[in-house]
Every structure is written in C-alpha cells, then in structure tokens.
C-alpha cells in the first residue's frame, strides 16, 4: 500500500480540517442535488423529489460523520476534541470535579505510598553488587538458630569451595573515642578483612583491610564511616594515615566508606575482628558473629548448603564438645533482612487496594448521578451522528482525565505520606530510609490512575451510552432512571462489603495489639530508667572495676527520686548470653541437648529493682560474696523444664566449659519476657547469678557492656541527667549510652506491630468515611428522585416517621446485604492475616460482631440525614416539583 498518499491525507485531515470538511459538505450537497434532479426526471414533483432524495441519503450529518470516521488521524483528532470537551465540562462543575479528584487522590495516594515502601523494601535489589548471591549462614541446634561461632566461620571459609567469600561480622561493638576533643562513644563493627570485598564495596579513600590487618598483634587499623568522617573530622582529606585513640588503644585510619554504604545497624567505624581473636578463640562459647557469604556464580544455594553441612558434620566429629548437633542454614541476605516484614507490607497493599476500589465505587456513583442529568446532551450528540463507540470514548476520556488529575494529587499526598511514615518509624522496618518516589513508583501511580479511570468510568459510561434516543428527547426534564439506581445500589453494597472487610482486618490488628499490651512482661516497666555503660578495663584492673561499680551504685542511690539501683549483664528486651548448663546429679544429656537458659548476671538489688516476683526460696543478698557458697536463682520455666517432679532448691548447676563452679539454687522467680511480649522466649528458662560472687580478677570480662537500672519515684527520664552527672563525677571519660526507660524499650519492641495496626486503622477509617459518603449520596439521590412519591404519600396522610422509616429501610436493606457479603469475604480473607495476629484468631466472633454493628450504625446515620430531608418535604412543593 502506498505510504505517501496516506501521510499526505493524514496531514491534510489534521491541519487543513476546515477545508476538508467544507469540501465534504459540498460533495454531499452536490450528491443530493443530483439525486433530486434524477427524481424530478423520473416524474416526481420538485418538493417530493427533494424529500425522496433526503430519505434515500439517510441524513446528511450521519453520512458526513461516517466519512469522517474512516479518515486517517481520526483517533488523534477525536482525542484532542474529547479532551477539550471533557476539560470544559469538568470546569463547569467544580464541586463535582473537586470531590471526585479528592476521593480518588486519597485512594491513589495511599496506594502509591505503600507501593513506594514495597518498592524500596522488597522489590529493589539490595544496594550491593550482585546482591542475589549474598547469603547469611546461621548455625542451628535442632533447627533453632544459635550464635555463629567465629572459629567455625574460619573453618567453613578454609574448607568450602561453593563460596567466593565468607566474612564474619560482629555488630554493635562500642568504642570510646578519646583524644584532643571531647570523648565520644562510637558504634563500631568488628569484621573479617574480606567483609567489604564480600559485599563488593570499596572505600572511597584509602584502602580496604588486608589479611595482615586481621590477626592478633597486627597494627590496629580502622575504616571510618562517611558520616563520622564528615561529622567528627569535617571531611578532612588527610584523614587517611592519621591516628585515633579507641578504647585507649591507638588505631591508624586506613580508609573511609562511601556515603551511601549501609549494612545492618548503623556503625561509625569498622575494625578487623582478628585484633580481638582471643575473645573469639573458644569454639562454641565466643560472643558469636554474623556469617555473611557470597556464593560463587552458578552454584545453587542448595549445593552450598549441602557442602556446608558436610563440613559441619566433620567439625562435629573433630570438636564434639562444642559442635555436637550444630548444623548450618543458608538464607538469602534479602530474605534475612526483609522476610519478616513482607506479610505486613502485602497486607497493607491489599488494604489500600480495597480503599481504592471503594473510592472508585464512590466516584462511579457520582458519575452515575451526573450522567442521568446528561442523558439529554448525549441524545443530542447521537442525533448529530455520534456513534455509540464515539460517545463511550468521550465518557472514558472524561473519567481518565479525572483519574490523571487525581493521580497527580495522589502523588503529592504519597510524598507527604511516605515522609511522615519514614520519620515516625525509624526502627522496625528495614531499608526504610531507601524509600523514594522513583521511576517504578511513578509508573505504578500512572497505571493505577488509568486503571482507576477506566474502572470508575465503566458503569456510568455503559449506562449512559445506551439511551433510546426519542424517549430521552421526549422525556424532557421529567426523567428518572431506574437503571441508575440499580447500578448505584450495587455499588453501595460492594462498598459496604469492602469496608467491612477492611474494618475486620483493622479490628483484628487492634485487638492483637491490645492483647499484646495486656501481656505481663514479668517485671514492672513503669518508673524504671535503664542505660548502658561500657567499662574499659585491662585484664589486671579487676579491683578498679569492682570499686567503680560499687561507687556507682552508692552515688546514684543518693540522687533524689531514686528508689533503688542495680547493675546487670543481660537485660530483657536488650540481650543476654544464653549458655548451656550442667546440672549436678543428672545423667549427662545427649550432646546438643544440654539444658540451656538465658543468663543474667546481676547485682543483689536487681530482682527487687525490676520487681520480679520471688516464688520460692530467697533472692540474692549482700552476704553472697566470692568467698561464700556460689548461688543461683532460676525461673519457673527452667525449674519446670529441667527439674520435673522434683524440688530444684538446693540442687546445683554450672555453666559448661572449663573453670566453671557449681552453684546452689537458692530461689525460684517468675519468668520474664526476654525478647518481646509475644512469648518468643516463653520456653527459654532463665538463670540469675550474682555479680558480687565473680572473683575480682575476672570482673573486667563481664563489664564490657553493663546495664545500670534505676527504679524511680518520679518521672524516670527526669533523672537521666542527674544520674549521668554522678557517673561523670566518678569518671569523666566514662561514656553512657542507650539511655531509655524500660517502658520505651517495651514500646520499641512492638513498634512494627503498632505501625501496621495504625496504618491499617487509618485505611479502614478512610474506607468507612468513603462508604458513608457513598451511602449518603445514593440515598440522597433516590430521595430526590422520589420527592413526588413522598409528596403524594404525605398528601394521602403519611406521617413524618412513616417517610423516615421508608427511606431508612431502603438504605438499611443495602447496608445489611453489604455487611453479609463483607462478613463472608472477611471470613475467607482474614486467615491471610494470621502471621500478624497475636492472641486472637482470624475469625474472632467479637471483632466481627462489633465491626458489623459499628458499620451499620454509621450507615444508619448516613441514611438518616437524607431521610430527614425527605420527611420535611412540603407535599405541595413536592407535587409541583417537576
């Protein structure tokens, strides 16, 4: 087919439109004249001939329109025309346009905000080279993760072939920076020399660690974070090569990390783990590390897993005392980081999806009501030759235009929303700082806007473009469309059903949260101030440390408002060692199944300060010293697990390993929730030993991180500064960190739950408002339609209450159907929430009933307003209404 004439005619049609059209008019007129003439020649009277010709032609405008339709460029031209027309019509109804755009904008905004979180957290690859090959290796004993032993990591690295690299990382190591300026506590990370190369990250200045840096006795080297370099050293370009005093030791700065570098919890600096190799030398009893590895290209995770477990089995043979029962699990790094948050985010996406559907239903209803008023306009357009398809296209242009405006507004709402979210939720959600509105998010918003436009344009468009022409024209102003009302009612039922599902979801989460808040943590978190102190002391400084701890408690106790003071190694919601124990007189357990528990090493006043209930026996006292019988307390769980059917009091236990002494159990106390309120540590027994019974020369090993706990009679935070003052009066270089109340610690442990609960509740509330508006709209509309009927009824003696009942009953019927549909939907969908619930089943009857009743009440209110208006109608006015 020749291209040139086509392009030629396209250009002519678009740019010379009027001339082309005029020519067409002339052509048709000429045709008509010729036809008339032929008829006259056949013997008809001129007037009859003309009429016959017109009939044969079948309508001048229709012929012209059908010719226009086959022309090139028709689509473009139509689009431009439709857009112009739609803009004009939207401008003419600012109220309608505003409400419609706002409704959809809320829906799209919520969707975009949640999608941008999902995009950042779940979809975008981790910010490392070939991040899909990065894995975390976890050691397990009977499927339960235990701390990864550093020496095992070294053996894996030396013996495996499936990995490019295996690195060891120890997070949250604190360093005291002292020197010329004010001393400062820094967050550090101990890493093996290959840590950065495993991630594929290079320092922006200086060099990476090499194997020589990563061994005991090497010259201490440190790499600084970009943030620390900027903040503390003003971005000094000559920083590489300079010396820093960290924990009273001199370190050489060898490099600076890139600004965008991020891995795990924030750290100011990284230091080779090999410098402290003696701390990690005891296989199975070292503080534990995180094992980060990169699988070789082409090797599957399963193959890597198999190989590692072969090695683990070999190590088990070699070191039965420490490695019995130890297996290795390979998890993708991405899964390890974001796996937990995925169900929450998808739940929220589902929820905002429902909100958007409800918004669509509402706007569809608005458009329906409007289209009824437009029947006549459309009939005229049809009479002028517009085809059904043409009119549909026009209507869709209008809804898509509305949706795009709403998309833009929604995007703005989303930007505000995400910045609110990320500033209120620093913890709980990984990668939250990476949230941005980028290309995928924009594409999502655009797609959402267009789909929404088509969706809410569908019902009214189909409704409107199907008029019987003459009827509509004849009908004039007196026009009620039963069709509109049916579609509108179906939309309301759908809205109510969707809203109910959302409300049930939100209700279940709220109830879970409430349940969680009811959990007794086993201690009294009110008026309890906690802070951490890292005491730096050499091996031979035991007496100094003992004196410091003693003085510290003495001084703090003097602060007004302080009721009691304690120090501990290990604290609920913070962390503690979880060693294995040997119980005297019991048959040696199978390797790997030794009794184990959470170990708290505490000062005598600890249990009283935390108000942990003593069940039997006695607590520690000042009389327990290194020279008296070593004692221990256990909790009820430990007692049940390892002393079934016998009295633990008087029995003796010791930690596994060399140089451990037997301790007599002198008391049994209540179990304390250790990790969170959700009972994750419910089956983990707890053991307490006394700080005061640690031999002075061994003390420095236990105070690298101690908790200072202060029970107050006043607002605990108001004592933070006075307590700090006491500490610095004692030792001005002693940095204090992580100051918080135990209530804050508790609240932080439920932050992720609170996040999903609040967001889902906000979305459910939004849905409820939209649904109420929707019901109000439909009932108002039907009341307006029935003004005449109401007038007649009242003229025939109906009372105000009768009219009220009539209208409300109508509305209520829809609501009840919607509620029933919604209950079924919620019943089927709520099991998807199971992982997010706590202490409540997905089909919790009370939640369902409460929510359903609440929704019906709101719906009643929404019906009542228009019903009142109907009841107030003056029959005379009503009858004259049309």
């Amino acid at each position: 087919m020749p291209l040139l004439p086509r392009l030629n005619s396209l250009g002519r049609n678009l740019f010379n439109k009027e001339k082309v059209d005029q020519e067409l008019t002339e052509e048709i007129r000429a045709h008509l004249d010729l036809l008339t003439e032929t008829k006259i020649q056949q013997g008809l009277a001129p007037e009859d001939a003309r009429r016959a010709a017109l009939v044969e032609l079948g309508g001048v405008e229709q012929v012209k329109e059908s010719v226009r339709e086959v022309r090139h460029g028709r689509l473009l031209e139509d689009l431009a025309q439709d857009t112009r027309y739609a803009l004009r019509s939207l401008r003419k109804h600012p109220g309608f346009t505003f409400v419609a755009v706002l409704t959809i904008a809320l829906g799209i905004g919520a969707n975009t905000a949640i999608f941008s979180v999902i995009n950042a957290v779940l979809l975008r690859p981790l910010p490392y080279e070939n991040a899909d090959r990065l894995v975390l290796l976890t050691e397990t004993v009977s499927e339960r993760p235990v701390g990864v032993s550093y020496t095992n990591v070294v053996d894996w690295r030396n013996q495996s072939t499936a990995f490019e690299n295996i690195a060891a990382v120890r997070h949250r190591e604190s360093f005291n920076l002292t020197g010329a300026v004010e001393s400062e506590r820094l967050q550090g990370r101990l890493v093996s020399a290959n840590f950065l190369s495993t991630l594929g990250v290079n320092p922006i200045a200086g060099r990476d660690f090499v194997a020589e840096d990563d061994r005991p006795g090497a010259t201490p080297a440190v790499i600084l974070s970009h943030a620390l370099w900027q903040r503390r050293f003003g971005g000094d370009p000559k920083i590489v090569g300079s010396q820093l005093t960290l924990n009273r030791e001199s370190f050489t700065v060898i490099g600076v990390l890139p600004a965008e570098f991020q891995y795990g919890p924030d750290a100011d600096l990284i230091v080779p783990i090999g410098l402290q190799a003696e701390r990690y030398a005891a296989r199975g009893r070292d503080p534990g590390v995180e094992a980060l590895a990169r699988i070789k290209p082409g090797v599957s995770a399963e193959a890597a897993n198999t190989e590692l477990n072969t090695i683990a089995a070999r190590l088990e043979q070699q070191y039965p005392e420490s490695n019995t029962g130890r297996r290795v699990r390979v998890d993708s790094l991405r899964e390890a980081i974001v796996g937990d948050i995925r169900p929450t985010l998808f739940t929220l996406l589902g929820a905002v999806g429902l909100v958007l559907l409800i918004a669509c239903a509402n706007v569809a209803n608005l458009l329906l009501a409007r289209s009824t008023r437009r029947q006549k306009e459309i009939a005229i357009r049809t009479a002028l030759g517009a085809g059904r398809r043409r009119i549909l296209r026009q209507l869709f242009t209008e809804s898509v235009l509305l949706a795009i405006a709403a998309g833009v507004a929604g995007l703005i709402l989303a930007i505000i929303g995400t910045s609110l979210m990320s500033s209120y939720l620093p913890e709980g959600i990984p990668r939250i700082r990476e949230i941005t509105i980028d290309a995928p998010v924009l594409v999502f918003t655009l797609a959402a806007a267009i789909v929404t436009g088509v969706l809410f344009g569908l019902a009214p468009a189909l409704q409107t473009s199907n008029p019987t022409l003459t009827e509509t024209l004849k009908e004039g102003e007196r026009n009620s469309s039963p069709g509109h009302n049916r579609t509108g009612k179906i939309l309301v039922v759908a809205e109510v059903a969707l809203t109910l599902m959302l409300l049930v979801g939100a209700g279940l989460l709220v109830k879970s949260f409430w349940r969680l808040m009811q959990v007794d943590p086993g201690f009294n978190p009110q008026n309890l101030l906690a802070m951490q102190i890292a005491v730096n002391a050499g091996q031979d400084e035991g007496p100094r440390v003992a004196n410091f701890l003693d003085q510290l408690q003495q001084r703090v106790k003097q602060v007004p408002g302080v009721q009691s003071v304690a120090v501990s190694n290990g604290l609920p919601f913070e962390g503690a060692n979880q060693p294995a124990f040997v119980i005297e007189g019991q048959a040696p357990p199978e390797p790997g199944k030794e009794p184990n528990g959470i170990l708290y090493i505490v000062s005598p006043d600890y249990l009283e300060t935390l108000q942990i209930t003593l069940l039997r026996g006695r607590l520690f006292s000042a009389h327990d010293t290194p020279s008296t019988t070593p004692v221990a307390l256990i909790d009820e769980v430990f007692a049940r697990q390892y002393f079934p059917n016998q009295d633990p009091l008087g029995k003796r236990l010791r930690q596994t390993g060399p140089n451990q002494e037997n301790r007599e159990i002198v008391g049994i106390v209540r179990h304390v929730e250790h990790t969170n309120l959700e009972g994750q540590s419910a089956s983990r027994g707890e053991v307490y030993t006394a700080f005061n019974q640690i031999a002075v020369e061994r003390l420095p090993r236990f105070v690298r991180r101690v908790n200072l706990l202060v029970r107050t009679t006043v607002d605990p935070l108001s004592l933070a500064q006075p307590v700090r003052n006491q500490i610095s009066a004692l030792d001005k270089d002693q940095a204090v960190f992580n100051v918080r109340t135990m209530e804050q610690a508790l609240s932080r442990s439920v932050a992720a739950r609170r996040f999903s609960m609040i967001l889902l509740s906000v979305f459910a509330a939004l849905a409820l408002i939209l649904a109420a508006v929707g019901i109000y709209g439909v009932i108002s509309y039907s009341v307006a339609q029935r003004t005449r009927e109401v007038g007649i009824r009242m003229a025939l003696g109906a009372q105000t209450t009768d009219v009220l009942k009539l209208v409300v009953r109508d509305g209520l019927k829809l609501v009840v159907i919607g509620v029933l549909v919604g209950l079924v939907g919620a019943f089927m969908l709520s099991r998807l929430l199971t992982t997010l619930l706590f202490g409540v089943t997905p089909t919790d009857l009370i939640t369902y009933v409460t929510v359903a009743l609440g929704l019906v009440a709101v719906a009643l209110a929404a019906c009542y307003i228009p019903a009142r208006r109907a009841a107030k109608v003056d029959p005379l006015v009503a009858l004259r209404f049309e």
Partner: protein
Amino acid sequence: MKEKKNDLLQGTLDLLVLKSLALGPLHGLGVSDRIKQITQGAFQVKPGSLFPALHRLEEAGWLKSSWGESENNRRAKYYRLTKAGQRQLQIETDNWQRISVAISSALEAI
C-alpha cells in the same frame, strides 16, 4: 450485528467501487448507479456506505478526486482510478476469482 456485516462486505464494496471506475471517472451518484447496473440491481449502495468507501479508497491512494461538471451542468466531485488503484483492482479481482472458484467447488462437493 450490523457492524459485522459491514466488515464482511467491505472488501466486496471496495472491489465493486474500483471496478465501476475502471472505464472512466464518475461522481458518487454515478458510482452507485453503475454498481447497480453491473450487478443487475443486486447491490444498491447507500450513500452512508458509498461515501466512506470512496474517501477511504482515496486516502489509500487508489482513487483521485477532482471537481467537474455533471451531464446537466451541475458541479460534482469526480473520482478516477490511479495507477495504484488499477493494480489494486487487478489484485482484488484475482483474489475474488480464486475465492469464488474455491467456494463454488466446496459447495458443489457432496
């Protein structure tokens, strides 16, 4: 229903229009009269189909139009076949013959 029939007949209509112009230029009414004549009245093309077809074929480059005088001195728009139009007529004629032979033999088979 109506739409479908149009689609089916569009090819036929194009062929008839091209054929009717093979002997020389005609105006719209002339084309429809000629089609009626050569099909012995079997096809009566209404203006609502004729004019879109004429314009479509013109935009495809198979016809060219110009204003001229009718038999009784009236202004009218005349269409004539272009070179491409003549080729197209040949192609469509061949096509049609192949199809009609095939359909006939199909219908004659038992």
